[in-house]
């Protein structure tokens, strides 16, 4: 190789390196400006993808600058969204089903986690409740309009009972345990981490029934009815969640540590609930079926004052998910 060719090669190499360095360094210049969004995140391990996304900076590379508003329960998250305090919220499918009955102006963008054992039935041993049939005439603490109430009603129905056959006491989710410990009720239907907390606090005075698989609970990302910009924001949030979910699958221990630190939980609790969780982004027919069955059930069991069945499809917006992972969307358009 003569000198001329050597010089040419060196020059080409230097130019290529220069282009790559300036691309990396000035990448932010041609990136679109970031949208500031507030997400009302329910303080439960079900929100793990959000905490992990924030911890690993998964939102940094997207078009949103995320701020969390931590709330207790999906219903509170929902009301923050409806009141405009938050742009997005995380709620269970039960909340979505109940709120669709009220025909609120919201949409669901994605489902990011499922658990088949999140809501549990806890009873005082002294009440001698061995099966759902024994609940008849008992005082039961639930959180109205949530998975808690829905789960109790299906449990009762399995034995031919309705909510009218029991004495319902309504509590906020974090107050259920107080009502239980003060013997205001014979049984409570809390979700995690309140079930675990109850078990920790009231070690001997507690009976947790095996209801795994009888209730499937999903957590979903929702917002007010979306315009183009909201869809764009939702897309960016989902992109961050997708990165976080991949991280959870590949680094489960690190992900658990993030949630433990964030929610000040014990590792025992996380080890307890973790096997029940499936972190996965989707928006499919099973969510619609779940919402439909819950809506029909709520009307049939008169859990709601609304009698008209809403069209649950109207509360699903697949535009954002279709942009991120079209393969995970399986609903009739």
């Amino acid at each position, binding site marked *: 190789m003569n000198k001329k060719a050597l010089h040419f090669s060196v020059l080409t190499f230097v130019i290529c390196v220069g282009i790559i360095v300036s691309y990396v360094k000035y990448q932010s210049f041609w990136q679109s400006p970031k949208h500031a969004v507030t997400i009302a995140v329910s303080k439960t391990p079900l929100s793990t993808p959000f905490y992990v996304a924030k911890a690993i900076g998964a939102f940094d590379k997207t078009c949103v600058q995320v701020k969390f508003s931590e709330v207790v329960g999906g219903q509170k998250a929902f009301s923050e969204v409806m009141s405009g305090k938050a742009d997005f919220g995380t709620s269970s499918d039960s909340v979505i089903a109940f709120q669709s009955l009220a025909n609120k102006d919201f949409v669901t963008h994605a489902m990011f986690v499922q658990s088949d054992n999140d809501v549990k039935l806890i009873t005082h041993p002294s009440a001698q409740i061995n099966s759902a049939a024994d609940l008849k005439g008992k005082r039961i603490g639930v959180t109205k309009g949530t998975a808690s109430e829905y789960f109790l009603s299906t449990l009762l129905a*399995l034995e031919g009972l309705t909510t009218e056959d029991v004495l319902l006491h309504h509590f906020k989710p974090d107050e259920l345990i107080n009502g239980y410990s003060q013997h205001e009720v014979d049984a409570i239907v809390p979700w995690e981490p309140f079930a675990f907390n109850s078990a920790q606090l009231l070690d001997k005075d507690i009976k947790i029934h095996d209801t795994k698989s009888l209730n499937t609970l999903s957590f979903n990302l929702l917002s007010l009815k979306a315009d183009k910009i909201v869809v764009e924001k939702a897309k960016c949030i989902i992109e961050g969640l997708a990165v976080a979910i991949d991280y959870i*699958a590949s680094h489960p221990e690190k992900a658990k540590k993030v949630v433990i630190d964030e929610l000040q939980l014990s590792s025992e609790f996380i080890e307890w609930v973790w096997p029940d969780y499936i*972190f996965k982004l989707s928006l*499919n027919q099973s969510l619609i079926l779940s919402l439909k069955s819950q809506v029909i059930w709520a009307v049939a069991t008169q859990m709601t004052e609304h009698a008209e069945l809403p069209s649950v499809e109207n509360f699903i917006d697949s535009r954002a998910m279709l942009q991120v992972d079209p393969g995970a969307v399986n609903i009739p358009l």
Partner: protein
Amino acid sequence: MNGSLSQRIYLFTLSCCVLFATLLGSVIWSSHSVELAFARDNYAQQVDNQTNSLKQLIISDNIYASNYSVNHWQSLQQKLARLLNSPPKLSPSQQTVQNSIKSQNENLKRLFSQITKNKLKNASAAIKVHLKARLMMQLEAIRSDSLQLSSIAHTDIYNTIKHEAFFIISVSAASIVALLFGSFSLMHIVRKSLDEVKRAFKQNHSGHFQKIHLSHPSEEFDSIVKAFNGMNEKLSETTVSLAVMKKVVEERTHVLEQLSNTDPLTKVANRRALFERADMEFSRAVRGKNQLTLLLLDCDLFKAINDEFGHLIGDELLIHICDVCREEIRDIDFLARYGGEEFIIVLPSCDTLGGIETANRIQSSLAKHSVTVEDKQINVTLSIGVSMFSEWHESLDQLINDADKAMYQAKEKGRNRIEVLTRKNLH
């Protein structure tokens, strides 16, 4: 790099082989990837089919009937469980979906066993419908997941093919660039070296024996250059250049020509040169109807002078006569020794009178300038015959002959005279 051309070609060939092997490797790798993705897709399809069978069963059978047998359900369930327990190797994202499917299937089994445990004797119709809907929902969740599995497999196939195509195109493009660069640089080196050798040969041809300095040294050409430079060194020591040789030959030829046309004693033109020039002038006179006059000069009593003073003095005398004649004639006139003591002067564009006048001038000058030998003055005279070209002259010989006759007439009439031969004189 001062390697040989063959080394460069070997290196070049080796690089091509490496590139080809890389391409082959990547094709094999991607075909494996695509094959695996197809296996995953096939697995997803089977799960989908199996779930559909279960859905069909829930729709068509009355699972709450008192005589309902769960055998059919269980056999389908076992098939699905077996399928779910032997998946192909899955990607991390597919593994997440697979975990979801397995979990959903566990839920499905538990829910179904709860429902069929005691046929929901106490349950209302509403809860029966609701739970059936829940069963359908679980199945739908499995089906959706299997569709997602399939979708991931399709994306994997698409991405693998896209990446492979990009890789093949990139490597091919790089190979073509490298091939062009390599072949052009080889061609450039060979052509440049050949040009340098060719130029050196050309310079050799014109007598400049210079060494070759290759701008792109290579072993093959170096050996040629070494041999050439060695040869050139020897040649430059032993060879006279053609131009020098030509110049020497021209000089020698000129001298020889001069010698062959000049009278060695008097240094004027000899008889051969005389006829050459006179012939030319005669032809010109004939062609152009020009005038031409000849003078034939003969030294009077030359033999007596030779006898008295010796031949050397005779020779001196002849030289003196020539010197005088040269002084008196024009530039265009031509003096030559005709033989012995006879001289001829060719006078182009000159008539008889002009000839006589020239002859007179010569005689007068000769009379004035005598030759001194041993303190003795020797006077010499000339008898001059004049003849002018006329229409009767058919050849130069006739004209010379007339001049000769005129000269004899001058001798006969007492020497030191000028006689003109005219046609009248002749007849």
